[in-house]
């Protein structure tokens, strides 16, 4: 009982939006390996749900929700549990990615508590409204305001210290 799959539209979406989703994932987790894993999981789940999600025009929101609602801090633990939905993932071992020069702001973003980091990424980078951010994170609007307020305070401190 799976509806007709439109692989062409899926590939088109992935081609157009994968880099953006990967950057969102990287902003959330601060590691390109984990960002790739997160995006892979999100896009795999998106494919499974594609007939419904595509017809509803919710492709990006659906993929982003999976990224945002993933337990980033849990995945930061040294021992990763196997990713749900990909038990037979047998990709060959990955080569080390080049070390990236990270900015002080990005480091400060990564040092924020998880929900503050997610809130500021959604609200102040992706431009979601307070209500949308609250819905995406499944928290109250007041909590979004307090998270982003505290987070911005810390980030502004970093920005103030940067040479102009």
């Amino acid at each position, binding site marked *: 009982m799976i509806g*007709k799959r439109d692989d062409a539209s899926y590939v088109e979406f992935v081609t157009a939006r994968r880099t953006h989703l990967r950057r969102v994932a990287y*902003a959330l987790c601060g590691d390109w390996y984990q960002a790739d894993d997160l995006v892979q999981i999100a*896009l795999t789940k998106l494919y499974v749900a594609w007939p419904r999600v595509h017809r*509803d*025009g919710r492709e990006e929101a659906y993929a982003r929700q999976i990224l945002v609602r*993933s*337990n980033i801090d849990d995945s930061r633990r040294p021992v990763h549990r196997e990713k749900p939905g990909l038990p037979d993932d047998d990709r060959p071992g990955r080569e080390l990615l080049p070390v990236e020069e990270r900015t002080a702001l990005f480091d400060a*973003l990564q040092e924020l508590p998880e929900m503050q980091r997610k809130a500021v990424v959604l609200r102040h980078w992706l431009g979601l409204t307070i209500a949308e951010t609250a819905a995406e994170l499944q928290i109250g609007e007041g909590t979004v305001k307090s998270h982003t307020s505290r987070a911005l305070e810390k980030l502004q401190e970093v920005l103030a210290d940067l040479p102009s």
Partner: protein
Amino acid sequence: MEIRDEIEKSISDGPPQGPVLDQLSLGKAAVRRRRLATGAASVAVLAAVGGSAYAATSLGSAGSGEHGFADNPTSSAKPDGTKPDADKTAANLNLPVDPKLACPGGPDVCLPAANVPLVAYNHAGKLVRSDGVEVLDRLDGKFAGNASKSAAIRLQAGGKEEWLVVGWTRKGYGVLVGNQAGTTFDAWAREWEEQPAVLDMPTDQIPAPASLDSAGRLVLPSSTRVLRVVANPAGVTAPEFSLGLEVEHDGEREWALAEEDGSSWDPAYKSFATLEQWLDDMVALSSGGETQQFVKFGADGELVGMPGVTVVEQRGGVDVGKRFAGPEDKTAVAKVTFEGETWFVLARRIGSGSTEFFPTAAMAGRETLDEFLDYARGQYAAGEGTR
């Protein structure tokens, strides 16, 4: 400089990525696995109970008292590191019967027999069984990777023996499993215990308000309250199954269609006036059938009603936002009546593609074309769409 610009500047495009087709093949593999899982197993399970009191229950703590599940030890290993033993004491096997497994919405809101869970953790945090189920064996352990507690159960129901793994997480999610020929129950359970990640549960990814396990039995998150049940809305025959539900989930009323390959759900009354209308549309979507469209484009480019449909009002070239259609795409909206009910239909043709129609039932707050268009713009701006 704006904080948005600073963040944007601080994040590059990263190292090179693999080909997109790799992602497509992973997606296809996931769909295949899903089909295989539903086709091979004879069971699954569980769920319930939420709340911080239970969320705090950790693996390995048998606990005691009201929230300690003294009757349901959940440790994944004994303090000395050895695997837990089967507890076949009469008290442990004699699970109480919970009528809410069969009638989750009260005495008048009952499930078809085929959709009734055999055992589950109920809302009081205890393993319970349905009437007529006899528990033969029970192993408490870590059978599901991210479950706070889980148990392997051997039971008999309807003259048939079944092996299940029931699991519970803070989100209250279930796990699937099935009987395996050529092994013993203990050996089968231990196999799952040695690879618990196989049964990992998606705790964070948009949990469905209701779903069916691989045997067609209802799985409910802890935050779901069942209000109505519609038996087999897809009209399938065994071994396929489907179930329609109206539920309250995290405080929101939602409609859900649970099928063997997954669930679909929407806020109630989002686009349809009744659960049955919504189910008809979802069944058509999931089966690749034709959905209700009410109108079509005539030769002159105007929308004309399908048989029995009266077009009350229409406009062409409507702007519902870039997520609906671009300025070069063909769009229209119509207010129509059909069998005494009023609907709005958005139509779009993207480029040279086929025309799509999106019907939405009229209701309080969206009774005029302008009110409906305001609603539709908001829905598309939010990335939700109208269906």
